[in-house]
Each structure stands twice: as structure tokens, then as C-alpha cells.
């Protein structure tokens, strides 16, 4: 289904032909090692690129142009994939065949992306300082707004504690102080290096023929001088020891986050059994945590677990009453012990397997999901292609899940204690 083309050294196009959709999508990702010194600049970069080009010099000119392209959208794309951070642009646009009077959308949108990437508004030897300063404010506000969602905030605090010595602890958008330190000149120099040295991943989903896309995208990036520097491989979790921390805040509901580690990552075949363990333990409405802690014990509204396969980290997060902290902590651990001692029913395994398989089947049901899955799976080091992944999930037995569960141990926790009314 996916065809790969090497356009230039370190520049790969992945092409997914599909004419079922009303829209196509194109992503451009520059892949960087996740590093404290550049994370914030990488997050800032696409926002600045989206502020103006030589031909469309401000936000309004850009939006008017996108309006003419039937409301096509181009947005910043910043992802954290294990040890990597990607930065770039994501666009989605109506397929040409739905446009009126034979209007073209694909070719103009690709050309527009070229202008965003290669013809930004510049001053002397930097980006437009006004754009950079204004987007720094936006980025700082986005970083600070993680506090608005207490569940997200607590989750980020937990990962910071757990990953003190691992790049995975660096927030996706970087730290506020690094944003403040960035300026128009530094960012522009950094971008020139990114253009030259980074691995570039292009992903297209839509109805256009491969030769059309190849020609458009080769032309899009033809102006770049490349000197590609190889990326290091993904690495295992670097453990600096566990810690249990807490913070009091004037809120009604407390948030308990517990972090676990396992040596099983997405780069080994036991990953499938670990995915199933996560589904049985805490992901979804039939998991042990949901069924017992919420439904039976009535201790919370939200509870769930997540598995970060690139690092072998499992987190459990629950919104609870502060007085129930010890009870909920103990129950979360007890449910893990039950899994480890083999207390998993056939019904639980079947439900988990069906849920994971269903998720994998629907990967191909929307352009966004296709791009999201395939453009990150390879970078994350996942050892299966989609078909192998499905087979591995179907083949895993309860014994495999129990063996996976036995590798899981509590590492750290963070408790956001609500001291409001």
C-alpha cells in the first residue's frame, strides 16, 4: 500500500494512494534528536514559518489564499517520537475532483508549502523579528496552558521526574526559558542547519498518481542544499532512579499519576503482549482499573493507563478525592499484582485483543490516521509492519501477557493534591 521514494539524500517520500476520501493530506517532517538545547526552537519554527512568505507576507494574506483553496489548512506539526522530535508542517486539502469548475488545489497547495518552507519573510540575516517575538509568546502560552488541564499537567510532571536522565523527560514543546532565549537570528541559523542536515520525511495520502506527487515534491525541495547527517538509533530508557513527589494546588479534584517501567519496548516482539497487558490492565472501559476502581469502588471518574512503547514506560493516571489517595494507590498496585500472578480471564484477553486489533484495522480509515500511524511507526523503531503487528496481537496467549506483566515494576509517582473546596 505504501510506496517509498528517496528524493534526495536523507529525504524520503512515503506515498499512500487512496481515492476513498474527500481530502488528501501532506506532511513534511524534519527529524531531530530530542535535545534540551533545541526542543523549544524546533517547536517555535513551524509557527514562525506559518506567519508569512515573500508572496503572502502576513497571516491575512495566507488565510485569504487558503480560503481560495477551498479552506485548505496548513498547521504546525511537532511530535515527540521516543528519542526524536519532529518539526514541520501538516496540510489537509479537498481533493481536486470536488472543486468547482475544474479548480486545482493539490498543485497550488504544494507550491504554497514550498513558499512557506523556502521563502519565509526575513530581515537581515534572520527571520522577521516581530513574527518570532509574537510566536514566542504564543508558544510560552501553549507551554503554560498545560497547567489548565490538570491531568496533562500531572502526567508531564511524572515524566519529568521519571526521565531526569532520559530525553523522554524533555517536554514536546521544550521549556519556557529556552523559548525566551530564542531570537530571530538564532532561529534562522538553526533552521538553515535543519534544512541542510536533517532527515526529512514527506508523507502523502490521496488520489493523485505517484508520478504527479513525485514531480511536485521534488520541485518543492529542489532549492535545498543538502549535507545529510545520520540520526542515532532509538535507545532504551535511561534510569536515574525512582522518586515519589507531590504538589498541593487549590483545585477540587486530585490527580494521582504512577509511572512503571518495563524492559519491553516496541523494538522487541514481546511488544504485542505488552500492548495487550496495557489494554487488560488500564486502557479502556473494560480494563481492570476502570471496572474495579471506578465502577466497583466508585473512587474516581477517570482512570486509565498508557504505554509508551519507545521507552518501555507505563503510566496510570486517576482523578480522585484527596482522601482516597492511599486506597487508590494500593488498588492500582493490587490490580498489577493480579495480572502478574496470572489472574487474567479468557474474556479479558479476547476483549483486549479485539480492542487493539480494531484500532489497527481503522488505521486506514482516515487520511490523518494513515499519516499519523505510518509516518511515526518507522521512526519509533517499531519492529512490526502493520500486518505482522496484527498477527502478533492475534497470536499472543494469556501466558505471554502474564510474562510481560511480570516485567513491569513501579518506578515513580506524582500526586497533585487538591486542597480546594
Amino acid at each position: 500500500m505504501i510506496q517509498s521514494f528517496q528524493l534526495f539524500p536523507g529525504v524520503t517520500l512515503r506515498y499512500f494512494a487512496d481515492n476513498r476520501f474527500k481530502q488528501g493530506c501532506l506532511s513534511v517532517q524534519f527529524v531531530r534528536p530530542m535535545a534540551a538545547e533545541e526542543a523549544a526552537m524546533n517547536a517555535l519554527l513551524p509557527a514562525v514559518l506559518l506567519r508569512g512568505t515573500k508572496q503572502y507576507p502576513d497571516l491575512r494574506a495566507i488565510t485569504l489564499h487558503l480560503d481560495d483553496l477551498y479552506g485548505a489548512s496548513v498547521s504546525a506539526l511537532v511530535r515527540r517520537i521516543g528519542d526524536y522530535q519532529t518539526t514541520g508542517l501538516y496540510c489537509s486539502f479537498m481533493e481536486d475532483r470536488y472543486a468547482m469548475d475544474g479548480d486545482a488545489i493539490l498543485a497550488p497547495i504544494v507550491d504554497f508549502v514550498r513558499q512557506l518552507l523556502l521563502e519565509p519573510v526575513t530581515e537581515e540575516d534572520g527571520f522577521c523579528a516581530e513574527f518570532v517575538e509574537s510566536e514566542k509568546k504564543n508558544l510560552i502560552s501553549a507551554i503554560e496552558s498545560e497547567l489548565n488541564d490538570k491531568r496533562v499537567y500531572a502526567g508531564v510532571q511524572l515524566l519529568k521526574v521519571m526521565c531526569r536522565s532520559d530525553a523522554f523527560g524533555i517536554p514536546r514543546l521544550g521549556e519556557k526559558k529556552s523559548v525566551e532565549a530564542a531570537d530571530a537570528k538564532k532561529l534562522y541559523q538553526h533552521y538553515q542547519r535543519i534544512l541542510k542536515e536533517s532527515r526529512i520525511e514527506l508523507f502523502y495520502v490521496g488520489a493523485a498518481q505517484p508520478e504527479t506527487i513525485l514531480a511536485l515534491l521534488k520541485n518543492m525541495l529542489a532549492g535545498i542544499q543538502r549535507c545529510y547527517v545520520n540520526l542515532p538509533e532509538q535507545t532504551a530508557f535511561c534510569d536515574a532512579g525512582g522518586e515519589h513527589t507531590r504538589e498541593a494546588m487549590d483545585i477540587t479534584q486530585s490527580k494521582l499519576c504512577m509511572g512503571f517501567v518495563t524492559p519491553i519496548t516496541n523494538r522487541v516482539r514481546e511488544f504485542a503482549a505488552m500492548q495487550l497487558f496495557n489494554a487488560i490492565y488500564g486502557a479502556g472501559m473494560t480494563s481492570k482499573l476502570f471496572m474495579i476502581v471506578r465502577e466497583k469502588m466508585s473512587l474516581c471518574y477517570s482512570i486509565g493507563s498508557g504505554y509508551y512503547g519507545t521507552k518501555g514506560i507505563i503510566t496510570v493516571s486517576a482523578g480522585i478525592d484527596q482522601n482516597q489517595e492511599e486506597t487508590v494507590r494500593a488498588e492500582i498496585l493490587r490490580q498489577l499484582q493480579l495480572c502478574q500472578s496470572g489472574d487474567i480471564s479468557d474474556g479479558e484477553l479476547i476483549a483486549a485483543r479485539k480492542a487493539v486489533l480494531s484500532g489497527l484495522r481503522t488505521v486506514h480509515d482516515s487520511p490523518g490516521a494513515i499519516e499519523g500511524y505510518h509516518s511515526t511507526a518507522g521512526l519509533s523503531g517499531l519492529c512490526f509492519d502493520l500486518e505482522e503487528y496484527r498477527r502478533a496481537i492475534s497470536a499472543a496467549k494469556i501466558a505471554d501477557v502474564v510474562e510481560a506483566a511480570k516485567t513491569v515494576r513501579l518506578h515513580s509517582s506524582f500526586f497533585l493534591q487538591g486542597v480546594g473546596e
Partner: protein
Amino acid sequence: MNKVFYPGLNETLYSCKMENGLTVQVLPRPGFSRKLAYFVTDFGSIHTEFLLDGKKIKAPAGVAHFLEHKMFELPGRDVSAEFAALGANVNAFTSYDVTAYYFSCTENFLPSLRLLLEFVSTPYFTEESVKREIGIIDQEIGMNADSPERVFENLMQAMYCSHPIRVPILGSRESIREITPEILNQCHRAFYTPANMILCVVGDVDPQQVLDTARQVLGDEKKEAGSKLRPWQEEMTCHRETVRMPMEVAMPNFQLGFKCESVGTGEDAIRQEIIGDLAAEALFGESSELYLQLYESGLIDSSFGGGFETVDGCALLTCGGDSNQAEKVRDAIVARAEELASTGIPDADLLRMKRSALGRRIRDLDSFDSTCFRLCAYQLSDFDYFRFPGVYTDVTAAQVCAFLEKVIKKERCALSVIEPRRQS
């Protein structure tokens, strides 16, 4: 079933009204794995007063949402576990004017559909389970209390005096304690009858099998439903001009609302909605002069956005986002609306905005969830959703300007702000 092909959208919709009164819509999507079914009742958080068997009933605030939670129980059975065993993902939500139950799956579609219809049409409430649910919803209310999304609830309280949109969908910790199995039964009997509901399916399915399954589970009998009371007397002025709330947030966040006349139902309703949306776009959309001016002066950031919203018995134009100076944003919007209303909107600008809005709606049809829900919501408003491109064509610049002139007035406006708590 009635089959209609919409060539401009390349969609074929099957629909019919069953003898029991249930409206069924099926949108086949060959070649897709996912199948999605929505079973929606025309009963939301605002419908707390109604007539049943000739008797007037006033249910506690939050009853529709409470009922939604309680529907997932059947005697001696675990509905969620049964869906999970089928490999289907089930969920539900309650809004101001509807309650929707839905599942998605990639296999076992018909048994899952049967289960959906069965559990939503079977009331089973015990004293004990109602009591247990109070603990869970208490936590949900607590979570909501800490969320900056409170800004919208606060806005509704500032804008409306009588319309129950001013009451939070979840109700309050006090009101949910007044809910009993008997009240839940009454609400179920009043509004969970087929004639008050819609079943809509999107995916690679056989429309006739959907209809047959609905008939097998729900039968043909038409049952008496409750009738909603709407004793809402609402002036077009706002209850309060500004409302502020301190919270543990990083940045002040605001929502601004302008009261509009209720849009009613049918094609006229969707026309009003599209006029409202285009007016919002012309006034403060990303391609407007005002947006650029506010953005460049730092009064708004990329979180800013808005649009036109309709709820049974009311309509409003809202916008909001992060800002340190929400009053200045409000004043600029009111002033700009006056200008636009007097200068008019050039036809070329309107055409561009229409093209953009139309393109976004067409792209949105790729989303199963959005399409399925919109098909239900517009059907409840008596409009065939896939006719939207034609309505866009008909809207004129004069209509959009007239809307701005009438609605964007300071007296119709309220402002809600969530402010960071002062550091002690």
C-alpha cells in the same frame, strides 16, 4: 428504504421512518473497516420539564446526563463487557438538547447494533445503583469545576435569565442527589420512545439489515411519548454583562457571547446557521481584517476562534480564547460589526468565504463521527444535511450584514473570563 444520491458529494443516503416512529438513516461507506452507529434521543439537559400521562413533571437538573450513565446497566448483565467481547467500543454523551449513545466496531456489527438498541431501550434502575452513580458523577462535577471550560458555563449563566442552558449539563452535587429510580423511569418513558429517537449508521453495512435489526429489537408498536414544556421567556438582553472566576490557570481565558433569536427548524434553520457562521467569519475569522489587527497587537493569539451555535429554544454567536484584555477584544468586535454592517461585504469576499466554508464541510465528511452526528442533529431539525451546498449558494451578503447589524450589539453581549488565581 428511501435512497438518495448526492452527486456533488458522491454520497448515497438511505433513510426511512419505521412504523414505531423511529427515523433510521444509513450512509454506506464501502471499503472502510470502521462501522459507527449513533442512537440519539431528542432529550438533553435542558428538557427537565415535561408532561407525561397528562401530569406535569419537573425533574432535577442533571437528570438527562445521570440517565445516560445509568442506561449502561441491564439486569445481571454488564453492557460494556458485552460490547468489549464483541470487539466494539461503546460510549455516550449528553448535550444541552440531545443524548447520544454510540458504538464503533470493525467486526460483529449486527450483534453490536442489537446490543445498542437493546440497552438504550431497556430501563433498569435500582436504589443501590443510583446511589453508587452519585459518587462517580460527583467526581465528574469536581473535574469539571477545575477545568477552564467552565468559562462557557459561566457565560451561559451571564447571558440567560430563564432558558435552562444556564444550568450546567451535569447539574449540581445537590440536584443529582434528588434523582431517584422513579424519576429516571419517567424520563425514559417520556423520551426514549422510538418516535423521539434517531438511529444513524455510517460504514460498510447493508441498510436493510440495519432496518431489520431495529424492527426485531424495538418492535412496530408506536408508544406514547412525553411532551416537552418550554416555559422559557427570554429577552434579547443579557442577564449580566461580565462574569469573572479565579482558577488555577496560566493565562486569562475568555468567552464572549451574543444572543441571537432561536432558529427553529427546517431549511430556514440551517440557512440562519450558515448566515451566522459566515457573519462570524466575516467579522473575526482568520481571514478578516480584525483578526489580523487583534493578533498583531497581541490582544488574541492562535487559540482564538468562534462561531454560531444553536440549541433548542436559543441561539448565540460566541468567540473566545486566551487574552489579557478581553474587554478590548469585545469592544473591537462590536465596533467592527457596525462598520461592516454599514459598508457591506463585497460579493467577491463572500464568495471566497463560502468556498472556504464549503470546502471545510466537504472535507469534514471524511470523519465518521462528525458526519453521523450531523446527520442526526440536522434530522432532528427536519433538514436533510447533504443539501447544505445548495444553501450556501443562496446566502447573500445583504443577509450576512443584516445579521451583524441586528446581533452584534453590546446589550446582547456577555463576557465570561477565567483568571489566574493570585499567587499567595
